[in-house]
């Protein structure tokens, strides 16, 4: 046994919703295995990971229990002894490769630092090893990668550099805290296979923290499911994924969006019927000085009234630019965007302001998209008030909307921080609906939410659409989510729509090579297919 966490309890400060971040936790990690710790936000999975190396924030204290590694209890070590374990015996990588590297230091220097701390190697030898490591990480130009600063690398390359740093001294254990969550699907697939390759080569034990069951199915040998600081179920990956015992595990798995699109009634009046929105040959180029970035290249799409059009793509595909053009937060460079037959790109600013209510938007981050200083009722009423209604007249409708999106109508006097992420996204939805729009543009509306909350919000969106006959543009990077909610899906790559059609076709038999790559990169695809086939 490589690592054993025994009866670990970590106290939370003050009077939170629970006294312990982690309570009576038992976990073991064997040599040559990947143990996935799965849980939603606040389950204590990241706290557990940090506790192993004594990297807890100062307000969190280990109350009892042991973390045994190579015959020593890590929680009892002195700071100096612990530092010898960090980076040498146990390496660690983190979620966001954008922020996990020091922006002011060259990548090579940051990797070299690990050698300088723990070994007496000379400068030239360290340099040689850094380049060797970066080569092992399959970076295209390792010599160059060592010389550049983090911002000059892509997200995936940065995560490779992070892994190189963590594995520099060939530690026996790698702790990976959501290492692929911030990455695109195809990059995620590459990083997952890299981690598995390195793990098998060094017979390492990997403690892999994630919230995504797809990733678990892809990489895990064993699984521990955490909830509210406790492990509710552990077992072999196959058992937990396919024959879950605990009710919570079952509910989590049920909330994972299926890969297979649900059966939807075929369109009543065909595609040629009433288009709520037509995007015709839209172009958009960002110019900054002499640099030109083509964000949208001749994009043509149609949204049938009362249906949902999913726009799927990775970062930089132009999907968010398109969303912003549809609500005219950005001006297009060419083409037309027709709503109800009228081209909105030709309206003057004043004309558009009157028409703006017809298209409303919901944003990704429910924490940043609500003004923290205003009461949520006012926020929802703001749109109608700007268009001339009196606050007192709008409030009854606001209460009604709160009921509609599944919130307590009496909560209108509270402030955004009093709500959870899922509730905030409901508020954002109510705000958009207060304008009685014909078209709702949702830009990654569930990406920041836990799976169970995500499932609820998706269900709410589908219900609302039926009730209000809304037409919806649904932007997402997650094909599984798109499959669940969309009537048609468009896949974008570098500003172009490379494939468009019904999800049952696009997801099952994609034609374009990029669409094929994107779909085969969905984590845990094999598991999902097996699970979903009767």
């Amino acid at each position: 046994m490589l690592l054993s966490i025994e009866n670990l309890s970590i106290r939370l400060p003050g009077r939170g919703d629970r006294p312990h971040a982690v309570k009576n936790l038992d976990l073991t990690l064997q040599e040559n295995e990947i143990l996935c710790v799965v849980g939603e936000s606040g389950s204590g999975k990241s706290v557990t990971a940090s506790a192993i190396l004594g990297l807890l924030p100062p307000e969190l204290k280990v109350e009892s229990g042991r973390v045994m590694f190579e015959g020593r209890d890590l929680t009892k070590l002195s700071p100096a002894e612990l530092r010898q374990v960090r980076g040498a015996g146990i390496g660690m990588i983190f979620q966001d490769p954008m922020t996990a590297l020091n922006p002011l230091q060259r990548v090579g220097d940051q990797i070299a630092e690990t050698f300088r701390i723990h070994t007496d190697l000379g400068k030239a030898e360290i340099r040689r090893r850094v380049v060797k490591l970066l080569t092992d990480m399959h970076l295209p130009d390792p010599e160059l990668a060592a010389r550049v600063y983090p911002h000059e690398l892509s997200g995936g390359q940065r995560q490779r550099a992070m892994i190189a740093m963590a594995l520099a001294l060939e530690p026996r254990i790698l702790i990976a805290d959501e290492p692929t969550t911030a990455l695109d699907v195809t990059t995620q697939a590459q990083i997952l296979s890299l981690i598995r390759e390195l793990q098998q080569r060094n017979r390492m034990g990997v403690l892999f923290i994630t919230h995504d069951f797809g990733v678990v199915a892809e990489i895990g040998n064993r699984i521990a499911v955490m909830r509210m600081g406790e492990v509710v179920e552990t077992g072999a990956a196959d058992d937990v994924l396919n024959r879950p015992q605990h009710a919570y595990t079952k509910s989590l798995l049920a909330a994972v969006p299926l890969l297979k699109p649900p059966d939807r009634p075929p369109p009543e009046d065909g595609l040629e019927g009433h288009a709520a929105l037509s995007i015709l040959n839209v172009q958009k180029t960002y110019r900054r000085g002499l640099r030109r970035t083509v964000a949208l290249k001749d994009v043509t799409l149609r949204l049938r009234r009362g249906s949902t059009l999913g726009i799927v793509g990775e970062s930089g595909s132009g999907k968010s630019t398109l969303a912003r053009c549809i609500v005219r937060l950005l001006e297009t460079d060419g083409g037309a965007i027709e709503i109800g037959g009228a081209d909105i790109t030709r309206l003057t600013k004043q004309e558009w302001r009157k028409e703006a209510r017809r298209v409303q938007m919901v944003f990704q981050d429910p924490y940043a998209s609500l003004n923290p200083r205003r009461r949520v009722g006012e926020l929802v009423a703001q749109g109608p008030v700007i268009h001339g209604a009196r606050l007192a007249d709008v409030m009854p409708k606001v209460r009604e909307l709160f009921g509609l999106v599944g919130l307590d109508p009496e909560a209108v006097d509270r402030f955004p921080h009093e709500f959870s992420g899922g509730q905030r996204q409901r508020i954002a939805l109510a705000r958009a609906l207060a304008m009685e729009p014909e078209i709702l543009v949702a830009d990654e509306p569930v990406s920041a939410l836990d799976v169970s909350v995500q499932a609820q919000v998706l269900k709410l969106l589908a219900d609302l659409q039926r009730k209000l006959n809304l037409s919806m543009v649904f932007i997402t990077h997650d094909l599984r989510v798109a499959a669940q909610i969309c009537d048609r899906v468009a896949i974008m790559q570098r500003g172009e729509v490379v494939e468009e059609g019904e999800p049952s076709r696009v997801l099952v038999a994609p034609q374009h090579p990029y669409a094929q790559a994107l779909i085969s990169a969905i984590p845990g695809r094999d598991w999902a297919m097996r699970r979903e086939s009767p």
Partner: protein
Amino acid sequence: MRLLRLTLHRLAVSVPVLLIILCGVFLVLQLAPGDAVDALLGQMGTADATLAEQLREQYGLSGNAASRLVVYLWRLVRLDLGFSVSYNQPVLDVILSRLPATLALVVSALALAFFAGAIVGVAAATKFGRWQDTLISLLGLVFYAAPSFWLGLMGILVFSVWLGWLPSGGLQDLSANYSGPRLVLDMARHLLMPTVTLATIYFAIYLRVIRASMLEVLSLDFVRTARAKGLRESAVIYRHVLRNALLPMITIIGLQAGAMLGGSVAIESVFSLPGLGRLAYEAVVQRDLNMLLGIVFMSSILVIVINFAVDLLYAQIDPRIEAGA
């Protein structure tokens, strides 16, 4: 090459900035009643209209405001700052003779405020939430709130009048006739109190800025990465956190260089230092337009140069900034 292009670009932008400042100051001063000749005649105790007319002709003060502005700007193009009525010397000579004292004061105060603020701010951030942090923040607040001229007067009272340790004013001991290292030492002794007084408020600002930005950087992921490598806490702070935390400080220094030149007026008056600040004050009293415009011109150039240097430094420290972008 990129540096050269940036320099040229900045130079081109500076010209209209200088022009706007000079025209603005010129026009504002026209609104004030009386000119240098009025002030001069007032000192002489006469009010002879023909003498006044003669003097105005002699000093180029006749004619309307617009034509005088054009004449002034044309002279400026030939790097001629004009002649001072009250000093009876070319403006440039007077300014150059006063510049070193002000520069020495401002630069040493800036350096003191920066280093002391950084050291104390880092100490406060590493002891966040403990009594040391509270004490430092409280001290910072006191320094921030105390007016510098009052601090200066109290300093004179304590260290010059009561204890007799430091001189109460001036730049050097004129009676001693020092030279060489002794002179430098003597000037340093004279500048000590003004420097500390001018630095206090900036010390308080920098201390708060560094503390806040240290706390922010400490919460970033790469700090956790550095700790996970097994780096010592002191190395984490100095190698990874501090350099990142200094970035907002450098921006602020550029912005405050101008404010500090302004702040030196009060300090130079309290400690009777022969610097630019006091010269500006006297020029206002004497309605010496040429002198005032000359000082504004020189100060503007100083501020522009300092900001340029700060931008270059910033680009040097932060690889994400492209010089010239």
